[in-house]
């Protein structure tokens, strides 16, 4: 009997673990180690953040789902990896520290035959002074929608602003809280949902709503933007993004590295090197992501973290990390199997794998400050990669070490994305987008990097209906309800 240990129970880890258990059956063991007791459909957190959904609407308990699936669930955080075993055994293992199940604080060693790192990101609030509290958590100057609890808090603060806006002007700032952030999409959705709710509440005229982000142009979204066929043109996402911001009366600051946050004030550096500040009454600034801080130790206890993890804390996989300058980047730099190059029984998926480089063109200010979006690895690609990794590991277990590994390069897969611009059965809107491939391939598609037949986008009520249906569909799938495997990632 082989044992697969999956670290992380988010979109990618949950997908990997549940498919692996389905394919392996009871002949082999699947263990999930995740510090959370609840599964969270993160794309709907923005609706919690404006009071249109509750925490209960976007989460469910993991324990009964894993019990039903026959998955060994440990509510714990992974602390370290020992790929060569320890002093008493050559068997590789990880150490975990419980966060629940009545064993809070206890540590344990969990041996594995195969390991999947799907630990997701550390929300690195402290990378920006004043954005965090100094202990790695969200500080008191801004709010966040990165977790369901954060979103509940964000809505509480937002409602106070809406109340004040009945009688006086209020300033709202939404965007990215550091020059190296990803997840502009979540901030994009949140700012337009705030604007939509403000109209419904009759306070829009008293709100100055401002966008700030590290993108070099609106509509970059960390994927270098995209082009869509429209009116006989291949039109840039910049046109559509700027149009939407203009239509909704939201001015934008772009190319910004927020370098300090105080109560009611954000300081930022622009790509031209200038230093600026902006005041706010309410701010939601996405933090940069980093690896969760896993360590790796050799058999003798020596630290070998730098062999397995990139400096940003994400796990090295079969990517080309020596591509160099932007001009040298190729689609083939991107990983295909997500297998660690040193330890073939170790894989990483979702946000946890180290990308070879950015997708957007690197930018920096004259002061040397890097200001560019980092690559998104969430949503549909995250689920597909998780399933692909599970497929490879199942084949390795069943067919032996020479089994063919399955592949899912982000430079060869597309993504469907629905970004809400306001919730409502008849007055909601969302931008429905597909992009193919996620990572532009300028050799295969010279000029624009993508296939215009499969890259499109439009905004409207239909997009909102799709986002709402996806909310229910993916929670249904994640609960492993009947027919769950028929719903694509």
């Amino acid at each position: 009997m082989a044992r697969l240990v999956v670290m992380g129970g988010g979109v990618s880890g949950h997908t990997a673990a549940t498919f692996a258990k389905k394919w392996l059956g009871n002949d082999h063991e699947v263990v999930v180690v995740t510090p959370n007791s609840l599964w969270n459909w993160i794309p709907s957190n923005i609706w919690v953040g404006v009071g249109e959904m509750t925490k209960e609407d976007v989460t469910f308990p993991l324990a009964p789902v894993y019990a039903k699936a026959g998955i060994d669930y440990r509510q714990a955080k992974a602390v370290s990896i020992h790929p060569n075993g320890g002093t008493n055994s050559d068997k590789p293992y990880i150490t975990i520290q419980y966060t629940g199940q009545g064993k809070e604080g206890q540590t344990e060693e969990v041996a594995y035959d195969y390991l999947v790192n799907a630990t997701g990101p550390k929300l690195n609030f402290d990378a920006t002074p004043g954005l965090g509290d100094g202990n790695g958590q969200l500080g008191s100057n801004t709010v966040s929608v990165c977790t369901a609890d954060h979103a509940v808090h964000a809505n509480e603060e937002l409602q106070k602003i809406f109340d004040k806006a009945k009688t006086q002007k209020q300033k709202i700032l939404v965007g990215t809280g550091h020059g190296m952030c990803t997840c502009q999409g979540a901030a994009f959705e949140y700012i337009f949902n705030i604007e939509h709710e403000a109209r419904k509440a009759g306070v829009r005229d008293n709100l100055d709503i401002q966008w700030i982000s590290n993108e070099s142009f609106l509509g970059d979204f960390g994927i270098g933007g995209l082009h869509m066929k429209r009116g006989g043109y291949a039109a840039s996402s910049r046109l559509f993004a700027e149009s939407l911001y203009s239509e909704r009366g939201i001015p934008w600051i772009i190319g910004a590295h927020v370098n300090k946050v105080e109560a009611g004030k954000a300081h930022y550096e622009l790509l031209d090197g200038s230093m600026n500040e902006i005041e706010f009454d309410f701010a939601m600034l996405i933090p940069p992501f980093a690896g969760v801080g896993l360590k790796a130790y050799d058999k003798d206890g020596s630290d070998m973290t730098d062999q397995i993890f990139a400096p940003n804390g994400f796990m090295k996989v079969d990517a080309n990390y020596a591509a160099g300058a932007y001009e040298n980047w190729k689609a083939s730099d991107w990983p295909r199997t997500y297998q660690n190059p040193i330890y073939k029984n170790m894989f990483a998926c979702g946000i946890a794998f180290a990308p070879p480089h950015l997708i957007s063109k690197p930018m920096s200010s004259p002061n040397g400050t890097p200001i560019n979006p980092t690559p998104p690895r969430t949503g549909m690609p995250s689920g597909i990669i998780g399933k692909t990794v599970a497929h490879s590991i199942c084949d390795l277990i069943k067919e032996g070490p020479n089994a063919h590994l399955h592949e899912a390069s982000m430079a060869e897969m597309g993504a469907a994305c629905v970004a809400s611009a306001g919730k409502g059965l008849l007055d909601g809107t969302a931008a429905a987008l597909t992009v193919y491939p996620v990572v532009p391939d300028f050799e295969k598609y010279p000029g624009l990097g993508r296939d215009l037949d499969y890259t499109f986008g439009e905004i409207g009520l239909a997009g909102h209906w799709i986002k709402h249906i996806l909310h229910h569909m993916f929670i249904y799938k994640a609960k492993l309800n009947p027919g769950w495997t028929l719903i694509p990632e």
Partner: protein
Amino acid sequence: MKEIEKYVKPYDANFTTMIPTGFVKYMRTCVIWQIIRFIMINIKMLIVVRKSHG
């Protein structure tokens, strides 16, 4: 077009962007049209999803 009058100022950043006309905005929430778009978008997305699942 009230939004244009309200938000767009000459030579501001948003002066050089596309601004949707009233007709375009109406069609975004026109239920009949959006039902058609719902079907079309789903078909397009399913094609991309199918292509991406190897």
